[in-house]
């Protein structure tokens, strides 16, 4: 039972959200130019770190927005959430902004 800070609605219980995979996986501007290996990477291969992981979540039972979330897969600590299109915050600087 996480409390996830939606960048638009504030902290809400996990049950309002749906996980939406790894963040910052960009779709190619020209998909037909990708090699098979690049397609495999884009479609199927994801990071599985022990520690901080940039993820997408959707506030399904709320504003319906997708957003990014830096979550520690070991402790479930959420270091930051930020909007789609924003660059990940500099967490090295200790900016555990929204939790």
């Amino acid at each position, binding site marked *: 039972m996480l409390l996830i800070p939606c960048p*638009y*609605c504030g902290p*809400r219980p996990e*049950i*309002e959200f749906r996980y939406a995979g790894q963040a910052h996986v960009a779709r190619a501007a020209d998909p037909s130019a990708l090699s098979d290996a690049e397609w495999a990477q884009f479609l199927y291969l994801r990071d599985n770190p022990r520690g901080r992981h940039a993820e997408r979540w959707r*506030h399904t*039972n709320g*504003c*319906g*927005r997708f957003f990014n979330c830096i979550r520690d897969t070991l402790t479930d600590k959420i270091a930051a959430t930020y909007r789609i299109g924003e660059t990940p915050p500099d967490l090295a600087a200790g900016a555990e902004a929204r939790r």
Partner: protein
Amino acid sequence: MPDQALRQRAPLEALARPGRFGATSAAAGVMLSEIRDRGLASVAARKNQRAALLAAAKSAFGCGLPTRPRRAFGRDGLSFVWAGPDQWVAMLDHGPVGGIEPRLAASLKGLASVVDQSDGRAVVRIGGARARAALAKGMPIDLHERAFTPGDAALTFFSHINVHIWQVDETPTYEIAVPRSFVGSFWHWLTEASAEFGYEATGSNSSA
């Protein structure tokens, strides 16, 4: 079409029987009613038109569109509730059928997409001394007066059903918009949650 006019049915018409229900040991802790005469519409800013839209709304309706989860009141019974970034639900008290969309569209043309939702949502008003306690049985957000005040709004859920809630006054009174197809389950669960405190249902309530 035969001469007979098509009869309108409010979402809760068959369900929200007026009367006193649940525990009767004390005064009713929860008051429930359905608002049946309010027009609703989704308003979404067109790309790169947010600033122009806010300005247009200000001059046409006399209120800014809230940019965080709040409700803002304009002229002539019109109000806007935040419904996500660059999205609002516009509401018109005593709105005639199909009346809200043209009224908004005329002023916001090219600045926003407007979609009539007057039939897509049931609006339930809940008030009374135990309204918060009843809502806490299904709603995960903090409605305490330090956390949620008149004018505040939230998109959340009540017992698995997506709802849009905003506070009306400090009594406290809230209004909750529920997708019409879910309103039977919503009403059932809301009344179950309220029964412990005793609730008074009045069939319909004027929107203003």
